[in-house]
């Protein structure tokens, strides 16, 4: 079985996101900061008439917040009934990855482990497959 994946860059690394989850890729308009919320939340933004939550994807990986400005790129995905924008550095291409290309034997570094559990070979390069649902769970250790 073959699915389409979007190749995007987060913290300078190539990751693949299953296109089933993706609604669109947008340039973020004004970002409204959400005080006292989980540090992985960069803020709120409006997309047409909806209010979306912008996730600082880099924070999930590095634990360092990135300064997100108006105009940065985000992948819009619907996760558990809510719409989120996942901030990415840039997007590359949409590629098809067959199920047999996906494997779990090579695990990413500890940094990425919370959001990635599978990798796949695309062309001659290995990319990590991002699980967007993990990105929007926030810092579980902090919530506990």
């Amino acid at each position, binding site marked *: 079985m073959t699915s389409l994946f979007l190749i995007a860059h987060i913290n300078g690394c190539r990751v693949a996101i299953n296109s089933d989850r993706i609604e669109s890729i947008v340039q973020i308009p004004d970002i409204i900061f*959400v005080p006292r919320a*989980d540090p992985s939340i960069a803020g709120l933004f409006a997309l047409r008439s*909806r*209010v979306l939550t912008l996730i600082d994807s880099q924070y999930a990986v590095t634990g360092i917040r990135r300064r997100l400005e108006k105009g940065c790129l985000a992948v819009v995905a619907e996760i558990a009934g809510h719409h989120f924008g996942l901030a990415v550095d840039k997007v590359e291409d949409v590629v098809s990855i067959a199920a047999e290309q996906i494997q779990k034997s090579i695990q990413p570094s500890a940094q990425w482990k919370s959001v990635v559990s599978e990798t796949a070979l695309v062309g001659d390069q290995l990319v990590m497959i991002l699980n967007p649902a993990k990105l*929007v769970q926030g810092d579980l250790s902090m919530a506990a």
Partner: protein
Amino acid sequence: MDELLDDFIAETRETLETLAWQLVQWEKNPQDRTLIDSVFRFVHTVKGSCGFLDLPRLLRLSHAAEDVLSCARDGQIIASPALVSAILAVVDRIAALTEALESGRALYDDDAHLIDAMLGFLPSQRTQDGADVIIDSELPDDAGIFAAAGPAKSRTVRVSLNLLDRLMSGVSDMVLARNEVSRQLRKSQTGAEVDHAFARLSASVAEMRDAVGLMRMQNIDRLFSSLPRLLRDISIELGKDVELRIEGSEVEVDREMVEALRDPLKHILRNAVDHGIETADERMAAGKNPKGQIQIVARQSGNQILIEIIDDGRGIDLEKLGSRAIAAKIATAADWQIWSEKAKLNTIFVPGLSTAQQVTSISGRGVGMDIVRSNLQVIGGTVDLENFEGQGLKMTLRLPLTLSIIAGLSIKAGDQFFGVSRSSVVEILSATNKNVKIEELGGISVAHIRGQRYPYARLEELLDIGEVVDSSPVSRTLIVIKPAIGATYVLDVESVIDNEELVVKPGAPIIMATGLYAGTTLPDNGRPMLLLDTSGLGAAIGVEQVQDDGAGKSDEIVQQTIKRPSALLFIATNGVKRAIRLNVVDRIEDIDVADITFVGGKMRAKIADRLYDICELDSIADTGQIKLLRLSDGQNIKFLAVEDVLDIFTLDGEIYPSAQPEIFEGVVMAQDESVELVNIYHYFETCSDVALASNTKALCFIGTVGDAEWEKRILAPLLTASGYAVSFDDADRKNAAIVLCRGSGTQDIDDTRTLHLRDTVHASQMPSSSIYRYDRIGLLSAIELKLAGAA
């Protein structure tokens, strides 16, 4: 009434649709208890609605079906396929009758056969009970009902909520697009033609947005409007005198929620009257007012809508409840010993339990309360009980506020904007107000406002956002907030920006997890805004998390306000400082002068499609806004125009008598000046709405001899305008409170209700009690005298 009938038809049809599958299942598994329960619930609801809509045929059918189902449920008769078919035949007949009710056709009445067929399954003594009911309600008035249904109905369509949601978000998009276009237009210099076209577009977009908003939202009044009538019928049937008070009917809720709440509220009310309120004798013996009180309060609080139903009846007898619960095998005796009071109370929501002594046509089959809970759960609500044994029962329905429009304030803190629901805001005052002091106490701050102390916090500190350091220090604003849960506190914000309608949407779980926000909203400027959860903020400040709206406490608050009335100090339109009692002031509104017109001899403001009188406003400027105080005596609303609002102060000093008591209640001291305290009655006494309330109209019969032009053209309009009903029909004569006749109607002299009118100023040979027919004041006061004498 027609509206209620339509609702009933729609509701019954809808339930039947969902029930169809279950009926088929039940035919296959007659023993299945949950299926019996749901059929039972349907029949019970139909019975309840019919009883109060006066549909005897449907009532008979549903009552009989309920009897049989109740026996089947209790295991007194075994549900056999033959019984199921008999019951299904009755359910089908209910469906057919409902259809007939809508189309206005008559339906051949052989209900008795169906009922007999079904009652044949009952044990013998039950059959007689059922037969009783049939006999006492055998009224040949079905034809009347169908005739009354009338041919012309307002046409409606049922639209799925999904479609409505799509429409709504589409329209919101349109508003944002329009705003963008308007920004672009401002940049590029376009001609008047484009501006004109754009203005038209804007107007139609705004109208559409309003319309779409209305499609989804309904005033909760719609839900409450049928309750007084329902209560009246129940209390007459049970011979109990009960008074219903409804508060907060201005709350707006989702249309879906109104539908979902209709049945639960009916059942709660029925239960309250039937089980809760005692008979007048019992009440007197218990030292209570013989008239039972039921209070329904709706309010919106943060992200919830609360509906409280409070009765002052006997409450729930836990011991009795226990024995019932054990008898109905809901709990074992051992369970009952260890269960908490709350768990015990919650057994009333289990199907099949009732504490009523006997089954009446109103309640007592233990079915109502489980409908209440299951209907609420469908829309994500909960129900809580507070039992005051011997004193009453308070039921609190909590409903989520998903996608609803709330009246909100937008406030600024740091460089951010937040929304806060206006319903939890008690008052807004300036930090420089002389009545406000911020005190430090062991590291925490306390706000001291007019003798009351509240926990105090700065929003910036609470939310950990940087304060904007402005070179010119501006006066900050304090908001006194009373959340649904927790004590009142004071929030210090940079400023209050606006007062607007906000569409609330739930935030992502990760945002809601903070506990500080009630949701998100998108105002017209297209920048998302967070809606603050006032209860959550209270918790963050550390105020006590008790629900401080218990019956006892609210009494205390009432007493406090009685002891310490407050007044609002304002500058009247003529430039003079005056005061008005605060309890009649709902709020302050700024109204565009475009919405104010001088019509019908008064200044009137058009607000939300209604016209309201404005007092003390002589002239209006061409543009700008006018500050109005919204005054309410609980029934009527008036607006009082003011130049400006200054302060609120406590009326603890003496009130010196005024020389014009009808206009000024007296003179009081405020801010070391003497000001006049406005007599609020003076604004409401001229209000004619009360006199026009239809149920208080006294009927005046006008007897006519020959040409009745004068009576019809002059007398009847005068009486109608003064709040009387007028009839020329001889058939109404015996019901009339007053009989008016002109000339020498000698045959009426014995009738004490008669008032004679004469054509001449001076009484000559007419009976001495006659009145000159153009003496308007004399005539009206004579009518009043007659009415007072008759009463």
